């Protein structure tokens, strides 16, 4: 409770500083425009930002579907069958060490500078951690639970629906958390590099004309997107009735991914 209040105080403090420091002239407006001028810049160009947000959200949504759907599907196959695992896992693991962003120019050649190249890049970017986490989640299911289910007469289908899927949910969700965040990163970064629309494109265009308030307005939008995504994942986790022990297993996997053991090279 106290930690929470403190956290809120820190956020409020940062917001106040954001407004006061540039206003007092301690930080030049070019480096950090004040919060009010950032919001005003965003408000004045609301239509432009709205359109850019729509483009970016569309790209994120489609990439998320590809990354998460594909990641869970392939992760489940790779996690439950040893032969594909032997074939695919070493490839995926070394692919994970490659800075995938080098592929983006290739995608623009293949797919053009529209949404397709962003979706392709972000999908692959978010797909890998989702797949790895799902595979790990399925592989780490306690075989004793499956044996117990079998002793109670569970059929293969029942074991899948009543044991394997619920047991894998925490790890899969932690994979979605990382994979989904990377999808947002992938979309925004690719928009900043080569594109003609989207928030990333706006940020980089306003940066070239040194219009800091408009740059920061874009940054703020990306920030809100990330926070909204995180809140949504938390909501799903609660809805999925994450139990204590499972939560811990999922948390460990998330920590492992977060601590750099499975960190992608950007």
């Amino acid at each position, binding site marked *: 409770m106290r930690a929470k209040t403190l956290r809120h105080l820190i956020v409020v403090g940062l917001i106040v500083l954001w407004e006061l420091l540039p206003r007092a002239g301690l930080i030049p407006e070019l480096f950090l425009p004040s919060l009010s001028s950032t919001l005003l810049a965003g408000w004045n160009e609301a239509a432009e930002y709205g359109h850019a947000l729509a483009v970016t959200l569309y790209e994120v949504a489609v990439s998320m579907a590809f990354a998460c759907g594909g990641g869970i599907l392939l992760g489940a196959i790779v996690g439950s069958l040893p032969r594909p695992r032997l074939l695919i896992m070493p490839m995926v693991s070394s692919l994970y060490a490659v800075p995938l962003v080098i592929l983006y120019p290739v995608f623009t050649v293949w797919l053009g500078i529209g949404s397709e190249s962003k979706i392709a890049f972000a999908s692959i970017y978010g797909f890998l951690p989702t797949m790895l986490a799902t595979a790990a989640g399925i592989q780490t299911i306690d075989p004793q639970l499956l044996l*117990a*289910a*079998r*002793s*109670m007469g*569970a059929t293969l289908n029942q074991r899948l629906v*009543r044991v394997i899927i*619920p047991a894998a949910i925490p790890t899969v969700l932690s994979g979605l958390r990382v994979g989904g965040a990377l999808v947002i990163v992938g979309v925004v970064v690719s928009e900043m590099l080569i594109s003609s629309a989207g928030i990333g494109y706006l940020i980089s265009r306003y940066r070239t004309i040194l219009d800091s308030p408009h740059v920061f307005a874009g940054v703020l939008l990306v920030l809100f997107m990330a926070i909204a995504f995180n809140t949504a994942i938390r909501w799903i986790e609660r809805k999925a009735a994450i139990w204590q022990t499972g939560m811990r297993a999922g948390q460990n996997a998330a920590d492992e991914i977060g601590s750099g053991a499975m960190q992608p090279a950007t």
Partner: protein
Amino acid sequence: MQPLANVTPLKPPPRAGAIEVRNVGQVFRTRSQDVVALEDVSLDIKPGRFVVLVGPSGCGKSTLLMMMAGLRAQTSGTITINGAPIPQPDPDRVGVVFQEPSLFPWLTAEDNVEFPLALRGVAKAERRDKAQDMLKLVGLDGFGRRHPHELSGGMKQRVSIARGLVQDPPVLLMDEPFAALDEQTRMTMGDELLRIWATTGKTVVFVTHSLTEAVYLADEVIVMSPRPGRIVDHLQVPLPRPRTYEMLSGDAFGALRDRIWRHIRKSA
């Protein structure tokens, strides 16, 4: 009209809980050689008996138990429960309790106990009633809403026993169920198990490493030798019931434990 006594029943009356093991062998084939895990094991267990399998690690006692549960196929020989073979698990005839409680962590205690019934599509109300009865039987009345991580090791194993009994099978197979518990809990659970056994009249086959536990619980102790697993002794435990803590230090108890120990020492 024909007198009822002359009508032949369609099925012979079930020999509730009888287990017959006939010349069972198990060979594990590895690339370099064949390992004989069990060799020519024959055994008759009468309904309602409490039978303990003991032996050193690797004597195949757990393997034998898994075969009785229909969880593993033997290489040769036959196993029948109530007169019929058991090619796959049949929760109507056999309940199994493992060393790990193997409870599903995302289900409450009562949902765990209901699980085998849910697999068969038993209606919710009936499931709940049976689960409550079972939890009461194992002394966990009022703990049904807890998740496994909110229960102690002994309580988890009680839930596991309740789950094994919920379909009212005549046979309960237990694979070192108390091995992971501390000494005190283990003693209490032994007494609890004997009480449950006395109330339900099940045939219990119990695998353990502990000689004291074996003699304390059993009507009969079956001693097995290490690879190839064979039955080297089959002894009756004539101690009266209920078993008490004082018996542990008695001469009769000591003599039985020594006899088992001599077999095991010889083979170890």
